[in-house]
């Protein structure tokens, strides 16, 4: 009986503890069975006890229908308030009532953050306050007979904290977060005192002005001396809260300031951005270090320092080591432990180059002048490629809401409670979001309106399931009705069609939720009046609209579009008949779904993509239609939502007006979606994808390309269709739906090719592809062929420029000169803006360029990066054009790549003539002329200075090192699609496991690799859009005891995140070591036989390998903890991997 009761409670979404159940049952008999509702709807906030208590003992499932879980109740639409809506007399738009909408914390997880600071709650003997030492007093009385109290110092709080807040404009979005952080520290009880300071950076001079306080009045405050913050007792913790983007971080001003404070005191940087974005801040120019404190309260200057492995110098870099923490419990915990002197805790930190150091020339990356803006797709894709899964999902949800900080936090809180402050930071830094008006330092950032960059919102919406965008609205509505009146809230407006008040809601403002009439009535006054109005005759107010807009259409706010001002026109549609139509639609959908599923079953797991898509879409359509039948969404919403879904199904949404032809845009999005699915599939193969799949992907890429051209008007629709036909054969794509206003195009339609022709063409393209693909190489673990590298026509920029940062000025000039002459140029200042994986982008840039130009100067040849890039260019067999800017000798390390190549001599004269000639040469090269031919016509092209003999020796001599180098190159095919796979494959190849290091090839290593890639597979499952983390436990892998205890099911999400974070960072470290190993092996190879005998080098190589193994072992351990996967034999896992 009680079990049944608990079951019912669970079904109602409550999860009572035993104690709560006992309380409920005990209280129930005292209550009357039926109490008139105090308000029109039960308040869901009342504890479970009360909800159940009201209904007495007669609980049944029916009662729970009244609990508004998905209430379709009518209500007022909520809009974000404009800061200036008092003054604005907007002509269009409707009136609004002010409303305090419940808000969400800007620092989610405050409790966990507080807990992580616990180590700092240490107390030390006070110097001023004393307490009675009972024991000592008693002893004195006994021994001396003197009845005098003995006092001992009272334990006092150890540290005080000074928050020093960066006031650079980019920090305004964190104002609320900072306020909450301050409050958290104040209330923590760990600190004697919490001070707040601010610093302003002069945008011109980059000077830092330190001020007390953090309010707006600091702008006019007096400059304070940094020494004021130094506590001679070393008991003040200085926490610099910043995003490290202001010029002061780049020009060394901050470094000097930190050095001043760190000399005797404790100073740390609280980075508002997540670790993955640090590379895009000034921290990228700092040397990353690991720090360890010797004792509690060790000042920065005396911290133990471990330099990064790739730091070749013996001498540490100049500067003060400063720990960097982000506002996440796992960072704060170790940091707090380290401050408290816990032994063996290493914390991440940086050494910022001081102002007088070598790095003076560094400037903040100019963020605001991208010459060549990326396309919407590129921007979104770039974000997706670099964002964490949570941030990506968050961006999708945000696309369904108006963007002000409080609303964004609210959506985050409601839709992704597990997301933290850093995830919102990622979205903000994505550059997908821009303020509607310029940032005004005096304005309250909380009221500022932001918007997605033109087109991004549409694109994002197309990536989120339609039902989810509806969910955002529903969930926010639910949250609002549950939390109205809570202390944390913000100013919003309720659309009020009945008044013409001073407040106006603009037509283009979208709504982010609703206030149900129940809540409105509780508020009384005007709200109650509005509630009455909304309930009367406006059951489905939004139905009034005659022009539904599909979410992927032109209107930026689909939700708004489909839910416009209630009551503007009255609802004319007969409710009954629309219900019948809906029911009929539902029936038809179900019938279709069944047919489709039968068809799918016939394929036996090999169903074509379109079929699977159709099934998915149908399922969703059914879901939505059911919601509409229940009144949870309106007809208009339904129609808008159904349109994109049923594009593929030959289906007329006959509840709406005549079908609109598929637009090119929709078609493009469709293609992108399919491509994504295919790529995910390919990734699952981990570089072993079947040829057919790769072909399909290729075809899709080309189709996308063509469609984009058509969109830009470069080709006509008819041409597009003709071109697409052979491409999309494999994809069952119904081109006839592509009725892209073909009639408007006056050209006669090209005859579609006959079937035979198509088959012929297809076969040819297949053949061509097989011919161009690289021959299969020797198998690694088993018998599979290595991944076939997709050969692509270079789609990147024409020229890739490799240079040393010291020559940046010249490169800038070069870039603009070339660009003005119509040559597209890739160089990292221009082309890496949004990404944090800049290394990957560089690789891509080199791989896809036509010409690789290296700017030679003494600095360039000394640069490790330039050397690596030249190496890469050689590896991808790009045409290398050396441009000598400042005379230099070619180092041995580059001779191999540059031998026998003509070079271009600028000799430090950046004359227009030179540039013109260069542009001519480059155009010629792009056109296919060789450098030798051009050398005759252009005087700046010089003959090779590098003796051809060297080349001779290097390539033909069959020395040990020569062969080795060749092997290394051959094996290094990089498969960009399978990042995870590439880690493994590059581990294997770089370690040279199948050649001369037999002693290193032990089974342990192998299974570690397999375990690691198994993990990557699991992880990828988690990243793939919105699916929950699915942990697949290998059927034949033994489970750890924990797994048997079914503890696995209850793996705490937080821990899981923690573990995954650790695994991720472990992989990052593996990457670093692999890079180093690469360099070392190359060095060894260059030295030839001498290299073999170099003990120092050999030791370095060995230790790098050991390090990799160590980390991988760590990964295996973590996997065991996180997923309960215990790997016992390498074979087992390899097998698993191959499947």
């Amino acid at each position, binding site marked *: 009986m009680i079990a049944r009761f608990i079951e019912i409670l669970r079904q109602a979404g409550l999860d009572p*503890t035993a*104690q*709560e159940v*006992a*309380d409920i049952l*005990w*209280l129930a008999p*005292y*209550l*009357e069975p039926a*109490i008139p509702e*105090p*308000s029109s709807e039960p*308040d869901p*906030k*009342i*504890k479970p*006890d*009360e909800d159940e*208590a009201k209904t007495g003992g007669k609980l049944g499932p029916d009662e729970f229908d009244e609990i508004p879980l998905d209430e379709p109740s009518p209500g007022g639409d909520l809009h974000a308030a404009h800061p200036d809506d008092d003054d604005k007399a907007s002509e269009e738009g409707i009136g609004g*009532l*002010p*409303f*305090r909408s419940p808000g969400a*914390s800007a620092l989610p997880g*405050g*409790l966990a953050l*507080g*807990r992580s600071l*616990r180590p700092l*709650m240490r107390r030390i003997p006070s110097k001023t306050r004393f307490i*009675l030492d*009972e024991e000592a*007093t008693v002893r004195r009385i006994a021994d001396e007979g003197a*009845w*005098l*109290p003995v006092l001992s110092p009272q334990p006092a709080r150890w540290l005080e904290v000074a928050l020093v807040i960066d006031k650079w404009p980019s920090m305004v979005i964190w104002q609320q977060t900072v306020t909450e952080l301050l*409050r*958290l520290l*104040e*209330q*923590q*009880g*760990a600190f004697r005192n919490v001070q707040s300071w601010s610093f302003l950076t002069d945008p011109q001079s980059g000077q830092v002005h330190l001020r007390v306080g953090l309010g707006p009045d600091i702008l006019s405050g007096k400059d304070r001396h940094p020494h004021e913050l130094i506590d001679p007792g070393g008991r003040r913790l200085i926490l610099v809260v910043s995003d490290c983007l202001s010029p002061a971080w780049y020009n060394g001003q901050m470094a000097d300031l930190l050095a001043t404070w760190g000399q005797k005191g404790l100073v740390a940087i609280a980075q508002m951005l997540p670790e993955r974005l640090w590379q895009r801040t000034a921290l990228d120019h700092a040397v990353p270090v690991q720090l360890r404190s010797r004792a509690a309260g060790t000042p920065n200057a005396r911290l133990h320092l471990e330099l990064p492995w790739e730091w070749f110098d013996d001498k540490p870099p100049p500067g003060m080591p400063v720990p960097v923490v982000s506002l996440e419990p796992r960072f704060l915990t170790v940091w707090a432990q380290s401050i408290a002197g816990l032994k063996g805790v290493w914390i991440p930190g940086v050494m910022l180059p001081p102002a007088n150091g070598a790095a003076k020339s560094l400037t903040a990356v100019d963020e605001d002048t991208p010459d060549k803006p990326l396309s919407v797709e590129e921007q979104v894709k770039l974000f997706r490629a670099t964002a964490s899964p949570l941030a990506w999902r968050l961006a999708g949800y945000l696309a369904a809401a108006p963007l002000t900080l409080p609303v964004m936090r609210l959506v985050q809180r409601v839709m992704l409670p597990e997301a933290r402050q850093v995830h919102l930071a990622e979205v903000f830094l994505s550059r997908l979001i821009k303020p509607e008006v310029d940032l005004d330092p005096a304005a309250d950032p909380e009221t500022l309106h932001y918007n997605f960059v033109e087109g991004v919102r549409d694109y994002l919406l197309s990536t989120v399931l339609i039902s989810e965008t509806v969910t955002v609205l529903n969930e926010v509505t639910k949250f609002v009705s549950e939390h*109205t*009146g*809570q*202390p*944390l809230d913000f*100013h919003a407006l309720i659309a009020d069609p009945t008044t013409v008040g001073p407040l106006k809601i603009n037509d283009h403002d979208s709504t982010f939720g609703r206030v149900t009439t129940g809540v409105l009535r*509780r*508020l*009384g*006054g005007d*709200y*109650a009046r509005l509630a009455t109005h909304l309930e009367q005759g406006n059951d489905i107010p939004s139905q009034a609209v005659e022009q539904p807009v599909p979410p992927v259409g032109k209107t930026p706010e689909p939700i708004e579009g489909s839910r416009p001002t209630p009551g503007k026109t009255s609802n004319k549609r007969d409710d009954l008949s629309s219900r019948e139509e809906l029911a009929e639609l539902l029936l038809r959908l179900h019938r279709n779904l069944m047919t489709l599923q039968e068809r799918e079953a016939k394929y036996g797991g090999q169903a074509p993509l379109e079929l699977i898509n159709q099934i998915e879409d149908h399922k969703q359509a059914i879901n939505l239609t059911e919601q509409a039948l229940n009144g949870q969404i309106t007809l208009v919403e339904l129609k808008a939502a159904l349109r994109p879904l049923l594009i593929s199904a030959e289906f007329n949404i006959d509840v709406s007006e005549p079908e609109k032809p598929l637009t090119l845009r929709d078609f493009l999005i469709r293609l992108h979606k399919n491509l994504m699915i295919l790529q995910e599939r390919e990734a699952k193969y981990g570089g072993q994808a079947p040829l057919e799949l790769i072909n399909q992907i290729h075809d899709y890429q080309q189709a996308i390309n063509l469609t984009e051209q058509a969109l830009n008007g470069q080709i006509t629709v008819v041409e597009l269709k003709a071109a697409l036909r052979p491409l999309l054969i494999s994809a069952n794509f119904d081109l006839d739906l592509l009725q892209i206003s073909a009639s408007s195009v006056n050209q006669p339609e090209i005859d579609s090719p006959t079937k035979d022709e198509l088959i012929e063409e297809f076969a040819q393209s297949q053949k061509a592809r097989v011919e161009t693909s690289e021959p299969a190489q020797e198998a690694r673990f088993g018998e599979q062929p290595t991944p076939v590298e997709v050969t692509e026509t270079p789609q990147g920029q024409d020229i890739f420029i490799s240079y040393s940062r010291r020559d940046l000025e010249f490169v800038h000039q070069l870039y603009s000169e070339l660009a003005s002459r119509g040559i597209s140029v890739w160089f990292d200042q221009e082309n890496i803006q949004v990404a944090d994986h800049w290394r990957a982008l560089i690789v891509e840039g080199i791989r896809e360029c036509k010409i690789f130009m290296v700017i030679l100067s003494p600095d360039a040849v000394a640069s490790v990066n330039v050397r690596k890039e030249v190496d890469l260019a050689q590896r991808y067999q790009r045409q290398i054009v050396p441009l000598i800017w400042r005379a230099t000798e070619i180092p041995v390390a580059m001779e191999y790549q540059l031998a026998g190549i003509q070079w271009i001599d600028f000799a430090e004269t950046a004359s227009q003539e030179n540039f013109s000639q260069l542009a001519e040469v480059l155009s010629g090269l792009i056109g296919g002329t060789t450098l030798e031919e051009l050398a005759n016509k252009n005087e700046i092209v010089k003959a090779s200075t590098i003796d051809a003999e060297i080349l001779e020796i290097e390539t033909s001599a069959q020395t040990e090192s020569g062969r080795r180098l060749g092997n290394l190159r051959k094996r290094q095919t990089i498969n960009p699609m399978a990042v995870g796979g590439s880690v493994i494959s590059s581990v294997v190849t770089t370690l040279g496991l199948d050649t001369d290091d037999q002693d290193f090839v032990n089974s342990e290593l192998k299974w570690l690799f397999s375990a690691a890639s198994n993990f990557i597979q699991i992880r990828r499952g988690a990243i793939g859009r919105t699916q929950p983390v699915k942990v697949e436990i290998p059927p034949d892998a033994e489970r750890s005891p924990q797994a048997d205890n079914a503890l696995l099911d209850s793996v705490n999400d937080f821990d899981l995140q923690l573990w995954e974070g650790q695994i991720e960072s472990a992989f990052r470290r593996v990457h670093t070591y692999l890079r180093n190993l690469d360099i070392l092996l190359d060095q060894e190879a260059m030295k030839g036989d001498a290299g073999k005998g170099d003990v120092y080098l050999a030791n370095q190589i060995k230790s790098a390998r050991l390090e990799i193994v160590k980390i991988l072992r760590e990964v295996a351990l973590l996997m065991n903890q996180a997923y309960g996967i215990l790997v016992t034999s390498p074979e087992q896992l390899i097998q698993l991997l191959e499947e």
Partner: protein
Amino acid sequence: MSNWWVFQGNRQPHDGIGKLPLPPRWRHFKGTSQREALFEEPDEQVIQRGAIFQPGQKEIELVNAALYLRRPLLITGKPGTGKSSLAYAVAYELKLGPVLLWPITSRSILQDGLYKYDAIGRLQEANLHHATNNGAGPDIGKFIQLGPLGTALLPSKYPRVLLIDEIDKSDIDLPNDLLNTFEDGQFEIPELARIASDEPINVRPHDGSDPVAITRGRVICQAFPFVVLTSNGEKELPAPLLRRCLRLDISVPSAEKLAEIVESHFGETDTEATLNARQKLVKAFVNRRERGDLATDQLLNAIYLSGLGIDLNSSATDNKDGLIEAILRHLTT
């Protein structure tokens, strides 16, 4: 109004607390009662704050549930919504005596709430005694004063009202420490416990009433006190605490509710003019409230002043907004 309600919320003192059923088995405490009577004479503060407060239906219901279940009541709400007044209203109506108030700061620890021991005072006195009489020292009980929580846990037939104000200001450990005490319903005073004697020792309670006798240094409650914890929602509270308390959110009073409150404070009006003036102020108050937090007290202040015939819209200074602007100033800027 409901039959099972002990607390009716009608501002009329009555003996209804006697009708409260026995506690559930798991909230039964073994203390032997030292006080059987109700507090017939409410103290000044209780009258002042409790006699006019008007709780809503939801508040009354949850107060009763907390009384029945012998569980603490955690009230969240904005400043000025009457979170603490509710505790006074309960004390007034059910004749539960002075409200034991424990304001929390980030430095508060459990010990502060339980008792204070003046060891130095005792030593000095004992020293004095020793030097002059050579006899036994003064009674230790003189140097122990119970805190609000300690006093609330003194065994009595009827519950006392304990108001733990602004629990969200506490440091991170206090809520958990509190929980244990709430679960046990008892605590120990080691200074008394170590005196090996069964003789009861008199100590002073928090509210300044007569000393109470404690045996073997252990205080065990009989009727679990009616504990009200208030929170401004500034900080998340730990889940265990939330689980063990009944939770009540007090929302800001609606315009209608405000009119009632005004009436209960100032009495019904006789003139049309006064009524109009009041309605105007309530309306102004509600409008301003949507832009920032305002406490109900501010409205009462404004109405009080306007009742004295002061024109709130004019100002002696150059301030163009008048006095009303200053009185209805937002709590948060």
